Each structure stands twice: as structure tokens, then as C-alpha cells.
């Protein structure tokens, strides 16, 4: 049984500078990608890598093993985002992609610099050390890799099934609206996700002088605009219906 290290000794696996340099490079690259408004396929992985590398570098200083490192790494990232964002939001800079990138870059580089300059955490008493034997950990990871990959694949399939089910069920209804109303003219827009077939557009002031407009047909995913005449005072009902049907499909009212 090994004895716990003396209180003032540095841990045997003292943290080297290489990780800090890599993290710093990633941070700068990620910030550049954000400021440069690069596509999400570039920004997202770079940003996440930069966060992971910076967090991994900083938590190594705690020397409390893998579990603590993961907790503090992820939790610390959330804390950093929350507090940095609060400062940005209170400052004239505001919360924008550019200001986020610059602010977090500064925070990350400062923390990395501090980690280079200051010594790691003083040796932790044995009961506080969470043990992680790299050799065994890697072997265990390799052994579990097929299962983890299989689980990840199944999870992806589950998400795909879920997403497909939402797109299948969302049929946008036929919509009718007044795009503009000025004087005696109103622009009526009829839109639909699926092709509607022939539709009759009518205006009816209720005094028997209803007007039927030329039949319109809305293409799939498209819209059709029609200018109709409306009285300057009084009430007129604007409807679209399927040809031959009495009950209107949609109804608008102008009541001036």
C-alpha cells in the first residue's frame, strides 16, 4: 500500500506546459472562427474543443482525479459562461457573438497563463485523491468502446426516429391573411404547405353585392396574393372556399 505524499510535495505527475499551449491555440482559433462568422460546421467543433482543452488543462491543477476533473471542467465552464455573460450584458459591449468570443478568449487565456505561472495545487491528502490509473483506464475504455459505440449509434437512431415523427405530423394549415389595407384596396394572401387545388375568393359586404374573384390555386409551399376591393366604411367578409362549397375554408373581416 503506497503512503500518501508529504503535504508540501508536488504531485509526481506535475502538469506540463504543452497542454496550455494547445488549449491557447484552440481558443484563439475558435474565437477567430466566431468573429469571422464561419459556418457552424467549423465554429461549433472548434468552440467545443477549445472549451474542453481549456477546462482539461485547468482542472489538472486540482489533482483530484478523473471524476472531479469532469465535474469541475463541465461545471466550471457553465459558471464561466454565466458570469462572463452577466458582465458582458451589464457592460456597453452587450451580448453578441463577437463580444462573447473576445471576452471568453481573454478569460481563457488569462486562466491558462495563470496555470502556467502558478504551481499546481498543493499535494492533496490521500483520502481526497480520486484514483485514475491511466493504463487500466485506457484498457477499460478500449474494452467498453464497442458497447459505447453501439449505444451511441442506437441513441442517434432514436433521435432520428423522433425527428422524423415530428416532421411527419406537422402539416401547416391553409392560411389567409390581409397583407395590406389601404383605401378601397386590400391585398389578401393565401398560403399553403400542400397544393390546394382551385379556390374561390369572394368578398361579401352583406348587401347582395358579393364579388367573386378569379379562381386561384396555391402551389405546394407557396402563396398567392390577390388585391380585392373593400368599402371605405362598413363591413365586408372575405372568404376562400372550395368551388361549389357553401361553407368557407377561411374567413377574413374588414369592418370600418
Amino acid at each position, binding site marked *: 500500500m*503506497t503512503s500518501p505524499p508529504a503535504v508540501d510535495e508536488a504531485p509526481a505527475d506535475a502538469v506540463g506546459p504543452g497542454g496550455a499551449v494547445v488549449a491557447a491555440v484552440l481558443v484563439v482559433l475558435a474565437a477567430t472562427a466566431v468573429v469571422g462568422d464561419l*459556418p*457552424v460546421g467549423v*465554429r*461549433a467543433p472548434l*468552440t467545443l474543443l477549445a472549451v474542453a482543452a481549456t477546462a482539461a488543462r485547468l482542472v489538472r491543477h*486540482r489533482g483530484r*482525479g*478523473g*471524476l472531479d476533473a*469532469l*465535474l469541475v471542467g*463541465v*461545471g*466550471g465552464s457553465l*459558471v464561466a459562461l*454565466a*458570469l*462572463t*455573460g452577466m458582465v458582458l450584458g451589464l457592460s456597453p459591449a*452587450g451580448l*453578441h*457573438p463577437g*463580444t*462573447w468570443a473576445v471576452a*471568453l478568449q481573454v478569460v481563457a487565456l488569462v486562466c491558462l497563463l495563470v496555470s502556467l505561472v502558478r504551481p499546481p*495545487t*498543493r499535494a492533496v*491528502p*490521500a*483520502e481526497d485523491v480520486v*484514483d485514475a*490509473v491511466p493504463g*487500466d483506464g485506457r*484498457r*477499460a475504455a478500449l*474494452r*467498453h468502446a*464497442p458497447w*459505447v459505440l453501439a*449505444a451511441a449509434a*442506437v*441513441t442517434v*437512431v432514436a*433521435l432520428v*426516429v*423522433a*425527428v422524423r*415523427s415530428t416532421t*411527419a*405530423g*406537422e402539416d401547416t*394549415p*391553409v*392560411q389567409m391573411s390581409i*397583407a395590406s389595407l389601404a383605401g378601397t384596396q386590400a391585398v389578401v394572401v393565401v398560403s399553403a404547405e400542400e397544393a390546394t387545388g382551385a379556390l374561390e375568393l369572394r368578398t361579401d359586404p352583406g348587401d347582395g353585392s358579393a364579388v367573386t374573384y378569379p379562381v386561384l390555386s396555391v402551389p405546394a409551399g407557396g402563396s398567392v396574393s390577390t388585391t380585392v376591393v373593400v368599402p371605405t366604411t362598413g363591413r365586408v367578409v372575405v372568404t376562400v372556399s372550395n368551388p361549389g362549397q357553401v361553407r368557407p*375554408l377561411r374567413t*377574413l373581416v374588414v*369592418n*370600418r
Partner: protein
Amino acid sequence: MSPGVSTSTDPAPAPALDPSGPSGLQRILRISSSLVGTQAATSVLGLLFWTIASRGFTTRQFGVANAAVSAMGLIGALGTLGLGTLLIAQLPRTHQALRRVTVRTALAVAAVAATLLAVVVPFVAIHLLGIGNLAEIAGSPAHATLFAVGTGLAAVVLVLDQAVLVLGSGRLQLERNVVASATKVAALLALAAVGATDGMAIFAAWAVGTVVSLPLVAHRTRGGRALQSSRRLVDLSALQGLGRRALSHHALNTTLQSPLMLLPVLVTATISSSANAPFGAALQLTGFVFALPYALSIGLFAAAEGDPREVLRRMRVTVPLGLGVSLAADLALLPLAPHVLRIFGAEYAADGADVLRILVLAGLPFVVKDHFVALRRVQGRTSEATLVLVVFTVAELAGALVGASLGGVVGLSVGWVGVLFLEALVLAVPLVRAHRRFRDGEPAPTGRRAGPVPVDGPLWKDDVDAARPTDGSVPAARARLDPPPASRLLWDDDATPPGPGRAAAPTGERAADRDPARVVAAEPAPRRRRVPLTGPALLTMALGLLSMAFAVDRARTTGDDGGATQVLWELGLVLVVAPAALVVAWPRVPAAARTTVAVAAVVALQLSRTVLYPTRFMFHDELLHANLLRIIGDTGRLFGENPLLPITSYYPGLEVVTDGVRDLTGLGAHTSSVLVLLAARLVLGLGIVVVVARITRSARAGAIAVVVYACNPQMLFFNSQFSYQTLALPLAVLTVAVFLTRERGRRRGLVLPVLAMAAVVVTHHVTAALLVAAFVGWFVLELVLRRRREDEAGALAVVAGAGVVVFAAMLANPGNTLASYLGSIVTSSSSDLSSLVEGRQTKALFANTAGVGPAPWEQVLLIGALLVTVAALLPSLWAARAWFRARHTPAALLVLVAVLYPVIPGGHVARATAEVGDRAAGFVFLGVAFVVAWWFARHAPTRRRAGIFGAAATFTFLGGVVLGSGTVAAQLPGPFLVSADARSVDADNLAAADWMATALPADSRVYADRVTGLLAAADGGQFTVRHISTGIDASRLVLSPDFGEEDVRLVREAGIRYVVVDRRDAFGLPNQGVYIESGEFGSDGRTTPVPAAALQKFDDVKGVDRIYDNGSIAVYDVSGLDR
């Protein structure tokens, strides 16, 4: 495994071996050829049977019969209860005089069990789950009786075929099968000749053949009658004490057989009986192809005579041979498939050729799988093999289901075979490793040998499964029950190392008084190899998510939120939670595995929210926070007004973090929120492990605490949605964790706890207040209990003080309405309680305001969960007094929190207090998790305890879900419901919101009902007028059928520009209690829905234009009223 064969598929034992006989390889080939011969004879007759059936009956009836026979085979195999394989092992050790009564008893038990199952299973499937496609098999009394009798007979012959190998010979088994198969053919011809057209007539012919073959066995074994000592027909004492062994065999055999038995049933249930005809025919043909590889593996097992090295030595020949034969068959059937299927008929050739080509590919992975099973049988590790194969069986069926939903029968075949190939890849790893060890001269590991075992890289040193020392030797302590060294017994925060002469650690109850952590049970030394549980558990959880995805898909596409949909949903939840509940409590599991599985479970539960609604925010609280996120994104500023819930603007931590992720990554708002919430959930799980393990010094207790915490009623719903508490709670746990693990003696050790505390304060008011209160309480406890240790008390004071300062700063923000917000909650809770006391019940105990309540089974779950929680809490709280005696302040604080548990269920007596109780669950359960986990971990881990804990935790979780999330039907998506939050968000509402975003000026003041108003703000970019933000109750605009001066006044006073009406509100009462908000027009004593006239009154108001209509939603421009 030999698919497509309807006879016994249990691994038949090899004939007796001549020790002076041929070499090992020759023995394997001899055994294999014997089995192949038996297989060939019965397969030819079986093929003839099905060919006649295909010619004489319609494809639909063929499909029915095929599914019925497959179901019979599966249920019959289940009914054998492993007795067949047990008899093979047990009969040679049984006295000759008792063998026949033992066999008769086993046959009787199998018959009864199988018959009962054959009655119950179809009844449940058809009448309770509503799987109508199976009605033709057992939907009528006559068919159900026939099916039950046939299945009972099937179980009898399965057991008998194995018993005769001991009582008679292998040849008798062959003869019986040939007689049965021949009789079936004759019976089928006779039935076809008399004009029978029913699919179950084919099944009846099968049963007749079975019955006729039984007298043959009785006649051929009559010589043994003279030897028997008991004339009793059945004697249950003959099987006494053999139950566990039988079940072990049964489990493995059933697992191996079930996919092939279930596939035709799946095809029938999910596609159609007609589709099962070509599928069943193709599956029958694959029996020929897989016969040799299967026989090779069985021969290998039999010839090995219990020596794993023999298996590993011969694998070098049998694996390539099996793969070669399978590959040859695959290549041959590529062009020949339609021609071979023509035996069954032209339509089978047309519809089944592609299916056959795909199914026959399964021969390749079967070679690997069968060799894996053979190796594990020889090693005596059947339990491990069963566990692994159970997971893969579920995966195979899931793959088949996915394939079926995507591509019908062909898709099902592809899905199943695809999973088989993945399975082969995974199972090949232990085969290769074992072979390498054998090749390198290491002894083959068996399940029977005791001794030190390799370590999986634990995370915690004080777990019994300690890390391997750096010199590479295996610590002897692992083989003994050594207690931890004295220097690690006491949790000494002063980090004072134990000096010489220090008194030895006391033992017994007094030790528990001084340090309750001392009595956390160490695990017994491993007596056999540890079962790798992490991988199967993770895969099972993923399969649970897949099951939930199927449930969600079914609910959306069919509109059915009951029956099979609910089963799939509940099954998914069980598959996520149960593995974690078992693994954390199972003996001899490495700490890393426990922690991984426990944290993975809670993360998977968070992911289930994304599975449920993967593309957008849906719930009430999510939408109001999404609105704040939109405002921050649009303005780049904090503290802008959020009219949906003004207080959220002053605690924007969640939105700030999400905005950061969105701006930095470029991902959408919802996707960014998913990432944030997953990270938060990971922090919550890890934080609980760290806190509990730190206090109890047991990683096992830490992992158990995570599972217990998952039973919190709000785990699945409230604490998973995009709402500020969802982030604040994990950050609060993080604060406690980093405080406990800080670097003591240096000020910089407090930096992280202080920052974490600040993050909590800017995120959620109540969580922050409770966290600050907790630190203050901890500080007080430290002063009272720990004899004023200044360092610890000082650190607590610093963190608490920082929290107070930041909290005060947030409170001082102009416009912060926290006081009035909390005041209104207190007022409404008090009002509801007063009503309750006065006898005016405000909330039905088991129903919402629309009268929808949980089903009886859900009520049982709910009440049962409460009882189980109380049953666990009472003894654990009683034992937890030891923490006070030990003066352990953080533990004492958690115990006090746990005492508050009654608030959670007790709050459900009234609606307002129900909300308070629900929101308290997330905090209170931290204490509950600690006490229950610590109490459970005090007991030595055994499989029995792990099973009880697993079952209890899973049951409690399911009941908690009902308490916190409502009925299962309400949790699932489905058709529109009136004022039902997520069930009211549909294409019509979304279309209206999207239109508002493009057609109306941003931040126009709109008035709408509860859900439409949320969408108008979050998606439509409008300012939804609410009483909580404006102080104006404008609900009569939408709910009163009369239009008058009061309406005009409200429009002008609130500055409303648009009124949005959902005409469907007239279809029913509001499921969430209100159409718009608390205290709305007409809410007192409401028993009927809002009148339709109220929703149409603006049609006739001068100065009001209806400017939008999508059938359900209408938008009125009321700006004319303002003039």
C-alpha cells in the same frame, strides 16, 4: 443457433465419447454430422409441411399459421423453464428407480407452465394491448384453446426430446421427430382435403403430429418401467432444490431462441399476416443454411469436455469452417433465392427473394455468436453470457422494429441482420482475447477459479476494488476483507495525519456513533470474475431511448396515446432506469462502472426530453424562458422586460449561458439549450456522486444516491425542461461539491465555490435563497456541533456571505419583482389551503381541472412509489441520527433536508401547494438521496439486495413520474387538447406564431390564451399582455361572450393591438386549469367550456378587422378601438 427449425433448438448433448476414440477434431465432426443428419431429416419434412401449407392455403393463412407456430415455439420454450437441459445434467446422477417419475414430473410442470403462458400472453396482447393482427391466432375461444393446448404439447416434447437422450438414445429423438413431422404432413393433407381454410387448421395439424409421436416414446422406453420405484404419476419432490439451476439454463436457452421465434410474430403484428408468409418461408429455408455452423459449435462444446483450452484450440478450424460454409451459402443463394422459394409458390418467390438473400447473411454473425456461447458454457460463465445476450436480443428486436417501420419486411430483415453483425463485432472481442491468451500460454479464465482479478481503472481509492499498485503486483488485500487503513478511516477536515499512539479505531455501534462513514460496508473479496456490466447497461439505456422514440412516433402518427404506445413509453423508462438501479447495487462492480452507469442514466433521462420533443421548445415554462432568450438575442442586453414572467428577466443565468453557446457555436436556440441542459444534468449527476461519496467515503453510496435522486418526481419533467431551476440546481450541487473538495488552508480554495455560488444567484432566485440558507445553516451547525472549528466555519461564512452580497445586488436591480412574485405564490398557496380546510376542495386528488386523471394502474404506481419512499426513508432517517452524534455537519444538514420529504406528496392536496411541493422536490430529494443511499450502502452488497433495490427504485421512479409529470397519456404527444401546454402546441398554433413574426411589427402588444400567447411571444416576437406583467386582467376579451365598453377600456388601457383567438378553446375545459391565467374571467366554479360566441364576438365589432385565419386561429386587429 439454427433458425427456421421448429423442433428442439436447445443445445443437444453429444453422444457418449470413446476415450480411446478419434482425435478432438474428428469427434467434433462426428457429433456435428449426427446433429446435421437429425436436422436435415426434420427440416426436409418441415419444409414439405410448409410447402403443402403454402400451396393449399392463402398467403394470409400461411402467415397466420407461421406466426402461430413461432409463437408456440417461443412460449413453449419459455414454458419448459429450463427443465430439458436440466434433465440432461441431472438424470445421470439420479437413481434409476426415480428417473421416470422425475421425467414425468418435469413434463407435467412444463405442460402446465406453457399452457398457462399460452392463455395469458395472447389475451394480454390482443385484449389489453390491442394488437389486432394477432386476433386470428387466439382471438376466439376455440382458437385460444387450440393455441394453449398446442403450446403445452410443444413444451412437453421439447423437454422429452432431451430427456430421452438419457433414458433412451439420440436415435429415439430422431425417430420421434420424424414420426411427428410425417404425421403433421399427413394431417395437413387431410385437413386441406376436407376443405379447411383457417390458418389455425395448419396449426392444428402441427399439434396432431406432436400428440401422435408421444406414444412412440412411451413404447420405446417401456423397458424402464420395471426399474421404477414410484408408481406416482407426478412427484414434485423429485425436482426440489433444482430451481435455480433450471432457471440458469432456461435463461440462456430462451435468450438464444427468442429472436427467431419472435421475428415472425413481429412481422405479423407490425406489418401483416400476408407479409409474414414470404418472410416465414425464407426463415424456414435459412434453417438448412445455418445447420452446419450451428452443429459445429455444438460439437465443439460437447467435444471440449469442460476444457476451455480445447474450445480455443479447435476454434481455429471451426470458425473459419463455419464462416466459409455460411459465405458459400450466401453466394449461392444470391442468384438462387427466387428459385428456391418457388417451392412455396410463385408469389413467395417474388416477394421473398430479397428477404431470403438478406436473412441468410445472418449465418456469418451466428458463427461468432455460437462460438461465444460454446466458450462461455464450457467456462461455466452462462450467467454472464445470458446477461450479454439479453441485451443483444433486445437490440436485435429493436433493430427489426426500426427496420420494419422504415422499410417493411425487407427493412426488418436488414435491421435484424445489421444488429447481428454489430453483435458479432462485439462478441468477437472476448473470443479473440481468449484465443490470444491461450496462444500466449496464459491459463484460460473460468468462472470457477477464485483469486485476484484485473482492475478496470477505478475512480476512488477507498473503494475495495483499489487500483493496481505501480509496481504491477496484485495487492493481496484484494483477496481479503481488509478494512481501510486507519489513516483513511476518519474524515478529518483538518488534514491532520494520525500520529503514533493514537487510539485504535473503535468498532461496533460506538464506531458508527463516532463516524457513520466507517460502517459503509466493504464488498466481499471477489470469488469469481466480475461480470462486465457497464457496456450492456449503456446499450440497454440507449435501447430505452429508442423504445421511447417508437412510442412518440406511434403517438404522433396514429394519434393513439394508449395501449401499445404507453407500453413502449414505460418500457423505455424502465430500460433507462433499471440497469442503473441494478448495477449500482450489484456486488463486485468496479466503482468506475457504478458511477458511469448511474450518471449515464440521469443523462439519458435528460435526453428523453429531446426524444419527446426534438425540434423546439414546447412546455409552458420553456416557452417563457425561450422568450427571454429571444429578447436577449435580439437586444444583446440583460434585464429587458419579459411580459410572460417578469421575474425571469432578473435571473437570466440560463439564458445567458444558452445565448453564449448559440453565439459561439452558431447552433440554433433549441439545439444550444439541449447542449446546456445535458451539461447541467451531467454536473448534477457527478456532483451528487462527489458530495455523497466525499461524506460517506463510498463511491457505491455516491452512485446509489444518483439513482435514488432520479426517483424524484420532478426528474423527468420539471427539472429537465428549459427553465432556470434546471440549471440552478446542478450549479448548487456543484457549489457544495467544490466547497467540500476545496484546497483547505488557502484562500484560493474558496474561489471556485464563491464563483459557483454567484452563478447560482444570477440563475434562479429560490435556488439561490435555499443555497445561501443551506450554507448559513451549515455554518450554524458547524458552530454548534463541531466545537467551533474556525477554519471551516470561516470558509462557510465567506461563501454564504458572497451569496448574500450577490443576492442583494440582484434584488436591488430596479424593477426586480421577486418580493411580489414570491408573495403571490404564498398568497395563492394560503388561499388554496384555506379552501381545503373549509371543505372547499380546490383540486381533485387524482385528476386535473379537465377531469383527466391517472388510470388505475398509474394510481397504483403513484401510491406505491410514495409507500416505497417512506419505507426506505423511515429506517434510514432513524439510523441517520448517527451523523448528529458524529457531529458531521454536511451530513447532518442533508439529513435535515430529507426530513422535509412530506412536503412533496402533501402539497398535492391543493393546486397551488402542488406546484410548491413539486418545485421543492428537486431540493428535498438531495437529502433523501443521501440518507437512503448511505443507509443502503451500510449493508453488504448481495445479488438479492441489488435485485430488491433495482426493482424498488424502478417502481418508485415510475410512480414518481406519474406524480410529477401526470398521466402517461398526457406526457406523450398527440392530438390537440385545450389548454394543455405541449399538447396544445400544434401546426395551427405554430403557423399563426410564424405568421405574426413576419407580418406584424415586432413587440406589438397582443392578447391571447395561454399557449397561443406563449407562442406569440417566443416564436412570434410579440409582447403578450399578461396580468402578471401589466397588472391588467384582460381575459374577458377572449372569454366573455359580450362585447362592451369594458372591453374597449381594457384594449386601450393595456395598449393591445391584436387579439388572437383559438376557436378550439370552445371544445373543452382547460386541462391546465385556466384558458389564460390564474384568476381569469369565469374561472370561479367553471363547469362548461368557454362559449363559442366569446371567441367570435370581434367579428361584428366596428373598427376591428380579422386579418388572419388558419381555420383554428384568428387574429384581430383591434387598433381601431383605440381611436
